[in-house]
Each structure stands twice: as structure tokens, then as C-alpha cells.
């Protein structure tokens, strides 16, 4: 077993760390309070190559291996988890959907612009009445000549405000239920597509999340991704790298919270000594550190497994559920170590605590992960 990162992985981790600590970390609180990130940031990340991390080089991407990519996401998340999810949805879900299922024409049309960050990707699967039960989605697409006429509502669409392309899941044959779901590539200027108000969230406040509405939206038939009826297969096949991405996000948040807690415990004096001298604090730090290390190993292993194919669902879910629960636990303890100061915005742990919460909810809830894990165990044995 080899725990060493290779040269490319170290390069990506260090480059992302430099970028994140210089350009993201100093502004995390300001953007959190403003509930948005500056447009120039998206432009800079595009120029630096962060929108083409997983795309093949022939389309202008970096063609990174999954672990290099995950290491970069972890570093970004450590500085600003909202920026991480912006990148993760674009790279893991939108770009990968087209890489895996797009026709040559679709790839040539969209991927080079997505690699350059000219076209930001969004992924719209969830609906107001269909989350974990993705098969229950209600949006429809009826084929009329060379167009699909789409109606329905999607929610929790990350990047909706600035996305140029939405990978959208709709029912082309509602009577077939789950089997009647298809994926469409919907451009932002699609007639009949409207973007709703920004969601006011508990955490990840500077990432953009909205509803989108389709009212007789017209999508060229050529924008069907894969085959009709293949929608859920496409949606689920992208989940692996997406879930490891959320694992990396959770890991980054936990690490940032731990660093703050460690620093504070050395500075804060109570009863005449730094609180790091108390065993109650030491045991907290020991448990936090242990959970982070375990999460890191699970996330990195899951990333390596992603490279080999699609039979990693169980391991990926283990990494996702463990890292996200660890992040919630660790950020909670980081707040506790800070006492009252952990409850106010002057200290970053308050933000980490809020940001961590959603990692147990999106890209499959913890409960959904446990279904995947148990299924993979039962299938093997």
C-alpha cells in the first residue's frame, strides 16, 4: 500500500493551496456576509484552469486523475467551501455528463468553452417534490418535431445565476416512471427557461442556489444527452466523483475548523493556563484529528477507486457519509472549544459549522449513502 502522492498530485495540491490561501481565505467572511462571490473571481479561476480540471486535454482541460482533482477541491474548501461546490458541480457533474454521454458534436460544441470557464455548468435533477427519490421527478419533455417542449420546476440548482448550460433531467415518457427519464442539455438562453430568486441558505452562502422553471421551454432534439430513458443511469453514474467531491469538501471544512480550534486552544487562557493544557480540550483535539485522518484516507481511497471504474459506489458512499459526519462533528467541537467566541461571526468556526451541515444532505443524504453501502455489502456477500 502506497500512501505517497505522486508529483502531479503534489503539484495540484500545492497550487490549489497557494491560490486558495491567497485569493479565497482572506475574503471568506466578507463573501459569506455579502452572500455572493465576486464575478472577477470566476474569471480568475477560469484563467487559472479550475474549470477544466477533469476535462480531457483535447478539449482544453487539464485531464487530471481523480485524486489530483480531489486534492485541489480539498484545498479550495479549506479556504472557502462555497467556491468548492461551485467548481465541483461544474467539473464533476456538468462537464463529466457531457464527457461520458455527449456525442462528438456536443463535446466539440460545449467542452472547450466549459474548460475555459466561458460556459459554466449546472446540474438540475432535484425538484420540489423529488430529492432522494429522483425517480419521482415530474418535469416533462414532449418531443415535437425536432424539439423537446419542457415543462416543470427544478430546485437546489447550484450555479444557476451564472450557468451557461444546465444538465437537466426530465421525463420524456412519464408512463414508464423511472425508465422514462432522459437528460437534456439546456442552454441558458433557452426560450421558456427562467431562473428564480437566490435561496437564502444556512451555509455555503456565497455559492449560488436557485430554482429554475420551464414553461414550454424549447430544447433542440439534438441536445438530448445519451438515449431517451437513460436519464437516471446518467444521473447515478456521475454521482461517484460528485460524492467524493463532497467528501473532499467536508474534509477541507473539518481541517480548517481543526486548525482554528488548535490555534485558539493554545492562545486562550483560563484559570491561568492555555486551555490546550486541559485534558478535556486535548481529548477533543485528539478525537477531531483522528476523525479527520480517517476521513482523509477514505476520501483519497475513494478517489483512487473512481479512476478504475464504476464499481466503487459502496466505498464512495462510505467516504462521503463518514467525511460529512466527521465535518459536522469536528466543526461542532471547534465551536465548543471557542466557547462564546465560536458562536459569533468574528471567528471563522461559526461559518465552518454552518457550511458543514449541508454535506450530510446534498449529493445524497447520509441515509441514502447507507442504503448504497448496505446494498454493496449484501451484493458482495
Amino acid at each position, binding site marked *: 500500500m502506497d500512501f505517497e502522492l505522486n508529483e502531479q498530485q503534489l503539484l495540484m495540491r500545492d497550487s490549489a493551496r497557494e491560490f486558495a490561501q491567497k485569493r479565497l481565505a482572506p475574503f471568506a467572511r466578507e463573501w459569506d456576509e455579502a452572500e455572493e462571490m465576486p464575478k472577477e473571481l470566476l474569471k480568475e479561476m477560469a484563467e487559472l484552469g*479550475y474549470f477544466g*480540471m477533469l476535462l480531457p486535454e483535447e478539449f482544453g482541460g487539464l485531464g487530471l486523475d481523480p485524486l489530483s482533482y480531489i486534492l485541489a477541491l480539498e484545498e479550495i474548501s479549506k479556504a472557502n467551501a462555497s467556491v468548492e461546490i461551485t467548481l465541483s458541480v461544474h467539473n464533476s457533474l456538468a462537464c463529466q455528463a457531457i464527457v461520458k454521454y455527449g456525442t462528438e458534436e456536443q463535446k466539440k460544441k460545449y467542452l472547450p468553452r466549459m474548460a475555459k470557464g466561458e460556459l459554466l455548468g449546472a446540474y438540475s435533477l432535484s425538484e420540489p417534490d423529488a430529492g432522494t427519490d429522483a425517480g419521482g421527478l415530474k418535469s416533462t419533455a414532449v418531443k415535437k418535431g425536432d424539439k423537446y417542449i419542457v415543462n416543470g420546476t427544478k430546485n437546489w440548482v447550484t450555479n444557476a445565476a451564472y450557468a451557461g448550460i444546465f444538465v437537466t433531467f426530465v421525463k420524456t415518457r412519464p408512463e414508464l416512471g423511472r425508465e422514462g427519464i432522459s437528460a437534456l442539455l439546456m442552454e441558458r438562453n433557452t426560450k421558456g427557461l427562467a431562473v428564480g430568486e437566490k435561496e437564502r441558505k444556512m451555509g455555503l452562502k456565497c455559492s449560488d442556489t436557485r430554482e429554475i422553471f420551464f414553461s414550454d421551454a424549447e430544447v433542440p432534439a439534438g441536445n438530448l444527452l445519451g438515449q431517451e430513458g437513460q436519464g437516471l443511469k446518467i444521473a447515478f453514474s456521475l454521482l461517484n466523483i460528485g460524492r467524493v467531491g463532497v467528501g473532499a469538501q467536508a474534509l477541507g471544512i473539518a481541517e480548517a475548523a481543526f486548525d482554528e480550534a488548535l490555534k485558539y486552544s493554545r492562545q486562550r487562557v483560563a484559570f491561568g493556563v492555555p486551555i490546550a493544557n486541559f485534558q478535556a480540550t486535548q481529548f477533543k483535539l485528539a478525537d477531531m484529528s483522528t476523525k479527520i485522518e480517517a476521513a482523509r484516507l477514505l476520501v483519497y481511497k475513494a478517489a483512487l477507486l473512481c479512476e478504475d471504474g464504476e464499481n466503487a459506489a459502496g466505498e464512495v458512499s462510505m467516504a462521503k457519509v463518514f467525511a460529512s459526519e466527521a465535518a459536522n462533528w469536528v466543526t461542532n467541537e471547534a465551536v465548543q472549544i471557542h466557547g462564546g467566541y465560536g458562536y459569533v461571526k468574528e471567528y471563522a468556526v461559526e461559518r465552518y459549522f454552518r457550511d458543514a451541515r449541508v454535506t450530510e444532505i446534498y449529493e445524497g443524504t447520509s441515509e441514502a449513502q447507507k442504503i448504497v453501502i448496505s446494498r454493496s455489502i449484501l451484493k458482495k456477500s
Partner: protein
Amino acid sequence: MHIVVCCKQVPEIAGIKVAPDGSGVLPPPGGGMVNPFDVYAIEEGVRIKEKTSGKLSVISSGGPTGEAGLREALALGADEAYLLSDPLFLTADPLRTALVLAAGIKKIGAFDLVLCGKQAVDDDSSAVPAALAQNLELPQVIFVKKFEELQPKMAKVFRMTDDGYEVVETSLPAVVGVVKEINEPRLPSLKGKMRAKSAKVTTWSAADLELDAQALNPSGFGYKVEQFYPPPPRPKGEMLTGTPEEIAEKLFQKLRQAQVI
């Protein structure tokens, strides 16, 4: 336009240490970093290259540690990198460094502009750009904060002075030393970093540059540093005690004694 940027690998600022015998500044422990002023020169070089569809070469003299800095420059957009590395170059003072750099730059071939940072943060001599211009027999403008105009054979620049700036017009090629006000350096792109990792860095020794110990003989130069020494440590602060009113009164008296107020 072919631009050549000189860059120097220096110790991390916090790690700059004077040799115990006072003979100089110790070489960077670990990899060190690119002299921060040279980063502005590299950025300006990349911008001019982009604007003129030109070529950017970077050159560094000293030991093998210079390679890391050259790779950073390659990641930022330099096309070619040259490392002048020889035991003879290691202990070079600014005048000899300028001689070595001039030999390297001449060997690279035709160029239109040489850019340097105004000084290096380790020895702070600020002598290399001018000495380099002397060796290359070119005009020099140092402390430049802006290229106002750039033609194939002429540049008009703003040069910072203590009480403002001068507008200087120079023929090209010339040696230009830049200050940090000139630009805001970019971060290297991920693709640039990946490319730089495997890019070629040409290494030239003293023999390659047709320089020998005699040519670099210290007695042949009028430059001698008597002694390097670190600035004296800051005296310890004084803690005032008492009630807030007493402390304020004591502070007031001390500031008055010091003629600050």
C-alpha cells in the same frame, strides 16, 4: 519583441541570515523563493510578451537552487529558461553577477529588452541592473513603475524618484529595473505549472560562457563589501502599569519627553 528577465533565488524573507563571519548572506535554506521584485519583472515581461506576441526568456545566475525560480517563471508564461550555474558563480558579488548575466544574455542571442527587479531582498545591493547595462553596453532605467509607450526601438517609462516620478525615453534594447508599483503579478495557471514541471531549463557553466576564474577575479573589480551584519534587535518594550488613568498619564509624559507630542 524578445524580452529577457533576470531572476534571483533568495531565502524566504523570514529566513534571511547573515553569515557568521559577515562575508555575506547565507544561501537559501531549502528552495528559497524568487526575489519578490523579480516577480514583478516576470509579470511585466509576460504582459509585454502577450501584447507584442513576443518571446520571453528568463535567466538566473548562481547555484542549482535557481532552477526552482526559473520553473516558476516558466509556469507564469516564460518560453525559455537559462540557469547559469557554476561553483565560480556562487559567491559572486553584484558586479561579477552582472558580468555572468551579461555573458548569459549575450549567448541567448538577439533581444529587445532586459527586465530586472529593482533589487534583491537578500543583499539589497540594487547594483546588478546598472552593472548589467554597463556590461551589455546598453542604456539603463531603474525604479520604473510604468511602461507608458513601447515601440520596437524605443520605450517611454515612468521612473520613480523620492518626490515624484520622471518620464524617461530610452532607445531599445535597454535594461529596465522595475518597482512593485508596476503591476499586480498573476498566479501561475494550473496548466502553466504542469508544463513548467517538465519544461527544459538550459544550464550553462562558466566554461560554456567562456568565463574563467581570472575573468571573475575579485581583485579585478572595484567592489568590496567590508562586512554584512544584521540590524540591531529592537529594544524591548516597556509595560506601563496602574489604573487606566495612571497609564494614560504616564504614557502622555513619556511621549512628551520623547518630544513626540
